[in-house]
């Protein structure tokens, strides 16, 4: 275990609670500033700013097409062509990722920011053992461990943390592993080079309930043990509630709310889309009588409404919402909402950051 990891574990202890002062003491690790990503004329991510601090478990949440995956891929400089970062920048520990050259990005990926992709079942080569694939990663990053043997030992340590039997996995082929086991091996592989940030794309989608629970427990556990900062993409509010300490909710390319999970789920000052989304999810504990769908549908990026993108579906929308896109306003605790109605009067009350 490196000393960085131990240091970050201290931050992790404070980040889990709702004490926002403690959080603000943790240094920023990733800062996204006015980021836009274009696919031709379509803007999949539009002017997003957010700060991930060391020790966060940060959820990027939203429905399909909201831009959450594009945003996450841009964190690793991996926006698929023809997508391009059209405005803004991403700063990782003071370094501008958006202007970094290819060679430096290659060194950074995996070693400092690592990604576990969706559909982990496709992440492995079926004709060589898992152990051989790990050795390939270690050969590509020869400076990461003093000897290959130590690299293998560290991977076996990670396998035990994800509660798999190292002997079975190291000599096994991916076809021998179930979907849930592959997802756990993919998480261990993502952590092999001891990154300080782990990005996961829909880490529980396509897993059955028992495996979802296991992955949630394991990620909470890894966060505590290794102190790694976790960013995950999800459409599932239950996963946000179970795993995250902070969350950014996106809608049609815009960031509409960012805050702690308690702010998102319980605060009085919330984005109408977020409140409506929480009410729209049938769960085993929600009051069935209160569950309501959101009328209408998510606008296509090619036909965005002028003004607030949620206005056509919003029960609170007023005239200004139809014409002016609302900015995301942060309060002192870094809880941000992009809504004219909710934010009305906020600056007069001196509540803004």
């Amino acid at each position: 275990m490196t000393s960085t990891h131990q240091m970050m574990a201290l931050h992790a202890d404070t980040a889990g609670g709702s004490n926002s002062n403690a959080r603000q003491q943790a240094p920023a690790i990733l800062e996204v500033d006015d980021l836009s990503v274009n696919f031709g004329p379509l803007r999949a991510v539009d002017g997003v700013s957010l700060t991930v601090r060391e020790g966060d478990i940060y959820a990027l949440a939203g429905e399909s097409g909201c831009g959450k995956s594009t945003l996450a891929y841009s964190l690793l400089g991996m926006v698929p062509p023809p997508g391009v970062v059209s405005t803004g920048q991403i700063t990782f520990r003071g370094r501008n990722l958006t202007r970094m050259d290819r060679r430096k990005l290659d060194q950074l990926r995996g070693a400092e920011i690592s990604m576990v992709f969706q559909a982990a079942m496709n992440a492995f080569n079926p004709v060589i053992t898992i152990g051989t694939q790990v050795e390939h990663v270690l050969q590509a990053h020869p400076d990461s461990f003093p000897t290959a043997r130590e690299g293998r030992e560290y991977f076996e340590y990670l396998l035990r943390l994800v509660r798999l039997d190292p002997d079975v996995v190291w000599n096994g082929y991916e076809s021998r592993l179930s979907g849930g086991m592959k997802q756990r091996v993919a998480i261990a592989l993502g952590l092999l080079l001891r990154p300080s940030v782990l990005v996961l794309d829909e880490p529980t989608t396509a897993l059955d309930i028992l495996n979802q629970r296991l992955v949630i427990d394991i990620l909470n556990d890894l966060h505590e043990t290794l102190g790694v900062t976790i960013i995950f993409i999800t459409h599932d509010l239950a996963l946000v509630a179970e795993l995250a300490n902070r969350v950014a909710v996106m809608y049609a390319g815009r960031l509409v709310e960012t805050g702690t999970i308690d702010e998102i789920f319980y605060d009085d000052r919330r984005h109408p889309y977020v409140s409506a989304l929480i009410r729209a999810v049938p769960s085993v504990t929600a009051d069935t009588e209160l569950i309501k769908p959101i009328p209408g549908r998510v606008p296509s990026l090619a036909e965005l409404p002028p003004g607030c993108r949620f206005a056509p579906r919003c029960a609170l929308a007023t005239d200004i919402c139809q014409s002016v896109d609302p900015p995301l306003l942060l309060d002192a605790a870094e809880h941000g909402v992009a809504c004219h109605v909710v934010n009305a009067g906020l600056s007069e009350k001196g509540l803004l950051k």
Partner: protein
Amino acid sequence: MTAAETTPATDPAPLLQVDGLSHRYPTSTAPLPALNGVDLDVAQDSVTAIVGESGCGKTTLGRMITGLLKPSDGRILYQGQDIWKLGRADWNQYRRAVQIVQQDPYASLNPGLSIRETLRPGLLHHKIVPRREVHGEILRLLELVGLDADEAFLRRFPHQLSGGQRQRLAVARAVSLRPQLVVADEPTSMLDVSIRVAVLDLLLSLREEQGLAYVFISHDFGVVRYIARGGRIIVMFFGEVVEDGPAEEVIKHPRHPYSYLLLESIPIPDPRTARRRRREIATDAVDDRAEQPPAEEGCIFANRCPFVEDACRQARPPMAEVSPGHRAACLFPERVPQLAEAIPEIAGV
């Protein structure tokens, strides 16, 4: 003469009876069949939810109820008649009366057919309305499912519709034949969260208006609880029914260890509940609870069951009543903890 025909008139036969249904896909190399001895009654105007993980046989069961797949063993009785022994005209009527809404509205609609052509052939083939009224009927159906009932919309093709609109069209196609029973196989799992409940509400309102019965297949207990209010839940594990009871009862008081583990593990969209439930983790322990194969002898769940006894491995436990109308295939249902101890919020709903 079938058993159903001898039932006294005071207790009419259920709309559909599934009796000892088993199936093994001819190409399967799995040690266990896809379905094994499934029994199930579907009453008129009822909701029966079938819950289970991927691979438990719920989709196979749905396809068999719809008559799309012939079982290798067992019978499906529709209004007392074995569906695989029906004459041509009766079979035609059965295929009209039992419809299916499938999971993936991107795959279940023919991309080459306009909305009009998606709905028209069924109406004509089954002579639902006279030919000159077909056009009006199509508009009525679109209105019924909350789609635009106008000429321009009729000329659209599936690729011009959103996922939610496609699924509404699939529902319109299913109810256009005025069925008695609709099998809905995960109809909302591919849809965006914000519109799922709208499609569920559509199914519920159609049931009220048309007296439909649903067999609703899902892996999501939240969705099932919403749609099956007042109905039944059937829990399946590797091709077998392990629990069957009133929906609220199964969710609040599961009596089979498998149903209990599923419900206890469900991620819940409420941070306070989630934090309280966060489990202390025994590090370094290999956890393969979710990976154990089903037992080939005795209770199918024995390899994963935390309450297993030697007796469980001797013979397959029969479905036994645990409370009125609620049955579980477990020898020791009293060992299953009360779910409310793990999730108190569940008792209050």
